[in-house]
């Protein structure tokens, strides 16, 4: 019994790569640990992009299914989290594009996706009225609106860095862009957000 518990504890703290290997050798428990490890962050990340909880759950599920359907292709020379986030990001972007084609876009999302040349559209004034201070919820809503108004090329690296806590290297692998590009885009994202959120930061 003690050996079983020790084994389970050691397993639950294993590195992602070891768990993927264990899963490929037929251990379903390793798979469950990986899902449990990433499900919360992943669903939150997708929901931040698509603003639809049910859809975020569905896409989160689809992400894991794809991860493990193609687990045998995972080479282990980059972090497992990178792979998971890349699939989730692609699914979320596909969904946003599908909405775009169907014309089911909110104005906020349209501002973000239709901007292709890097030149920001006119920035909505999200500064608070001077009469009163904003409470925490309002500040968060303003942040979300400002983030949504960023072009995807700035929004995605910003969210991956500041909300998902991925390293620059991981973001490079998720988005398949160079380190210099990642850093410059995050820099640009922060400068735009600072401008949009002037007065409440």
């Amino acid at each position: 019994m003690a050996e079983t518990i020790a084994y389970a504890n050691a397993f639950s703290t294993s590195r992602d790569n070891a768990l993927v290997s264990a899963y490929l050798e037929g251990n379903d428990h390793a798979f469950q640990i990986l899902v449990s490890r990433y499900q919360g962050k992943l669903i939150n990340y997708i929901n931040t992009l698509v603003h639809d909880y049910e859809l975020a759950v569905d896409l989160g599920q689809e992400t894991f299914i794809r991860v493990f359907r193609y687990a045998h292709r995972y080479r282990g020379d980059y972090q497992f989290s990178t792979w998971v986030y890349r699939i989730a990001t692609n699914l979320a972007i596909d969904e946003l594009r599908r909405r775009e084609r169907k014309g089911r876009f909110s104005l906020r999302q349209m501002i973000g996706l239709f901007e292709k040349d890097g030149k920001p559209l006119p920035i909505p004034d999200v500064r608070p009225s001077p009469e009163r201070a904003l409470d925490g919820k309002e500040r968060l809503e303003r942040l979300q609106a400002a983030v949504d108004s960023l072009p995807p090329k700035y929004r995605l690296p910003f969210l991956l860095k500041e909300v998902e806590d991925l390293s620059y290297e991981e973001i490079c692998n998720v988005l398949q862009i160079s380190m210099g590009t990642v850093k410059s885009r995050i820099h640009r994202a922060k400068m735009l957000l600072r401008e949009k959120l002037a007065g409440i930061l």
Partner: protein
Amino acid sequence: MNCREVQKILTEEIQLAESAEVRKHLEACRQCRDLHRDLRGLQELSGELKGRTDVPPFFTERVCSRVSGRSRAAYWSLAAAAAGLVVLAIGIANLAGLSTETDGKARPQAMNGGERIQRIEPDNRAETASRKGQPDVFYLGGEGWGSQEPDRSNFGSQNGVPRVVPKTSSSGYVLELPATIEVRQTQAVNDFYLENVSH
């Protein structure tokens, strides 16, 4: 260290702003100090976007069920357990009196002004109707039909018009039908109508 170098540090790795070199620059440069303040605020506010979404129950099991045979079995066992709980809850609710059925027989029912009407069983009704001078009746409310002799004291159908009267002895209502009116049933089990007949 110049402003450009400091701003690069602030936007890329703001935690490095605690170094003596950067702090010295911030003390002397208001522009960079403001940037530092705003980026700190942005970092804190962005942190509140973390973990705002709940994971639905059985998420792991649902995923497992789609990628693994063994996990699928575990998922269905959980689903079966959940379904069992639902059935149990319905059973308890029925026992607690949410249903007026007491003898386990399926009885045809109709709705009338939000009240559940329990109709007499066809055989019982025939027996009741055969009583000379006795009107055919329905109970409305939470009583089983025929389990108790109706309180006739409040019956008062006049001029052949049916009417509903509250029971004095217990909760519920009684619908009195004159002997010239019968309840007929169509082929559909729950479809009833009143018809004028002569006995």
